[in-house]
């Protein structure tokens, strides 16, 4: 298991310690531990059925772990702490026959708010989203996207310290998805800690600071997004330069004598391009010095794998089901 130590300036808001949850036919979580830093956007990743939802339910106290403990702040998670958490589940729905305003008030009061306070904040949120006119409409009259907005408001209304969004962008059109992303980042700026569970890896790179990848009930990868991406880098460097076929062939030949040439090609910009893998004992500046003596270098970039690449590599490619957990863990450990 990869666990890049988190260098925290502050402390962690949520700590999950050796949590195990078994069901009759399978183990949903097996000795999972993670720490969620205060004020971070924490990505919870993993293929379907990996145990993400079980973990989220344990954090929400919907279900209890068989073993292990969950800490919120400096003490163990207690029943009344559900008021400090806001949860937007992947499967969302509202009472169809109930009016929007009344329903939002009901959920707000379940989270311990008074009627007056809830009404005041709801009016403010409705005004912010420009949906004041929906207050007395029944939920069944709303479109799916409209209902999602109402649900987002319900999730954040009690201003919880910890927010859990499970696939928040599903069901939103690009405009509203962007609005939602802005709201999530705004919540982060205001100090909330956010757990973000998704399959959408590009949004992970965009908004997550840290991630944990759960596969087959185990935490197989944890750490800050940029460090993880760097650590998964295979010391691949792409060199873009100006030149014709002849210079390119000469350079490629020279490169492959000293280092390992991975691929060559042409960029859209018209530059020639070569990608080289450096052995661990070689300094990058040696490569850069060597090539800049020979060609006109325009770009020199380290090829950092995307979260998508890492996900697929760790989880085991598209045919996830055929890969056994036991084979993943050692191979990942070798990376360190």
């Amino acid at each position, binding site marked *: 298991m990869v666990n890049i130590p988190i260098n925290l300036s502050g402390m962690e808001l949520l700590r999950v310690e050796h949590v195990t949850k078994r*069901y*009759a036919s399978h183990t949903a979580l097996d000795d999972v531990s993670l720490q969620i830093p205060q004020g971070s956007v924490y990505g919870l990743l993993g293929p379907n059925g990996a145990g993400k939802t079980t973990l989220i*339910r344990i954090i*929400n106290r*919907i*279900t*209890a772990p*068989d073993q292990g403990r969950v800490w919120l702040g400096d003490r163990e998670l207690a*029943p009344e702490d*559900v*008021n400090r*958490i806001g*949860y937007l*589940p*992947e*499967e*969302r*729905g*509202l*009472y*169809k*026959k*109930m009016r929007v305003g009344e329903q939002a008030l*009901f*959920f707000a*009061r*379940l*989270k311990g708010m008074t009627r007056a306070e809830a009404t005041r904040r709801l009016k403010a949120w409705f005004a912010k989203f420009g949906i004041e006119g929906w207050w007395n409409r029944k939920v069944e009259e709303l479109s799916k996207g409209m209902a999602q907005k109402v*649900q987002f408001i*319900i999730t954040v209304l009690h201003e919880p310290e910890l927010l859990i969004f499970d696939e928040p962008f599903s069901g939103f059109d690009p405009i509203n998805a962007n609005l939602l992303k802005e709201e999530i980042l705004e919540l982060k700026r205001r100090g909330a800690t956010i757990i973000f569970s998704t399959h959408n890896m590009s949004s992970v790179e965009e908004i997550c600071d840290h991630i944990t990848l759960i596969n087959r009930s185990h935490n197989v990868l944890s750490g800050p997004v940029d460090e993880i991406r760097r650590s998964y880098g295979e010391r691949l460097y792409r060199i873009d330069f100006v030149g014709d076929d002849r210079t390119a062939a000469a350079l490629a030949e020279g490169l492959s004598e000293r280092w390992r040439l991975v691929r060559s090609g042409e960029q859209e910009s018209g530059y020639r391009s070569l990608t080289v893998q450096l052995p661990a004992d070689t300094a990058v500046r040696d490569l850069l010095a060597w090539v800049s003596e020979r060609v006109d270098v325009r770009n020199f970039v380290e090829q950092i794998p995307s979260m998508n690449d890492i996900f697929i590599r760790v989880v085991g490619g598209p045919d996830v089901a055929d890969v056994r957990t036991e084979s993943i863990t050692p191979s990942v450990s070798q990376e360190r």
Partner: protein
Amino acid sequence: MNRIGLIIAREFNQRVRKKSFILTTLLVPLLMLGVVFAPLWLSRMQQEEQKKIVVCDRSGKIVPALADDARVAFRAVSYLPEVWRDSLREGYAYLWIGPDILSDPSDLRLYAEEPVTLDLEQTLGDRIRRVLETEKLKAYQIDNLPQILQEIQTDVSMQVFRLDESGNQTASSGALSMGTSYLFGLLIYMFVFMYGAMVMQGVIEEKSSKVLEIIVSSVRPFELMLGKILGIAAVALTQVLMWIVLIVVLSLLLLPLLGGGAVAQVAPGGVLSSGMADLDPQAIALLSRVTDPWFLFELFGSFLLYFIGGYLLYAALFAAIGSAVDNAQDTQQLQVPIMVPMIFALVALTFVMREPSSSLSVWLSMIPFTSPIIMMARIPYGVPGWELALSLILLYASFLGAVYVAGKIYRVGIFMYGKRPSFKELYKWMTYKS
């Protein structure tokens, strides 16, 4: 307000504001009273219409003995059957009585253009039979026969009393007890199913609309289930009390419309007793029982207690079933174990009405799954206080047990989608650690 309070309030407010709730609350008493009052009112309307019968009596023995009354009037003619159609200008039907009616009583024909009611057919037949019987008796030439017949006529009317433990006599009436017995047993059966199924529907609705996922992040599943059961209990109580009030008020308004005579004909429980005009002892006993405040208190008090207790017990089980399925179609098979004791109680009801103190009746009135129906059927006949108390304690204790078991199934079931679980799986869910 605490969370269960909020759930109960939501459940109650959303349901009583529904149009369908308001309509059923108002229409059911109207329909029920319609069923009771319409035939009474119609029969009174019918009596006003006197039917004229044209009679051709070839024997000459019957017509003189036929007197007109409120329903039929007779007019003797000498038309032959061949021309009976003409006679209909003068009356509703044409009655032919053969010349040898005494020796050949089947020589009797009734012609009419409209269908003849069974009622009229029987009335005419009865009256002619009586005339014939009198004629035949005359042939024996007994002196003072009418007086003798008058004297031997006896009207038996038994007054029934029941001795309770303290030796007090209570007037009781078999007919009244049976009627009340059946009515209250049936009502409990209907209400428990009606409101129990409402709980099940509500759970399925929350599950299929996925709103559950949001609620359970604020409320424990057990609180949600209990809140729903109690919220619908409040709805049920409101509706049933409204029905009782509406039926009482509407009855008081409708009774004067029927006139004095009909008032006495309507006995509680829809049992029609003999008229009050002659104040026969049975009717007095009945009336004293019905107006006895202690009896009414016992009857309605235990009705409410058994209705609520029975509802709570079954609603918990219905909630567990609702949590285990995704849609209403899948509930059929899982409902079977719940239906069986209820339907058994309903079948046993007719036996219990006849043998309220038999050991089977006593046992069934103790077992919580049948006690609401069976005990309600026994109460009109009088039930010892300790039996009532024990049965109620068992019922409410078993509700606590049922809600505990149902809660265990519910908290797992609400997150299970897909295939309908088997009973074995439901049992497995109960053993999961929360």
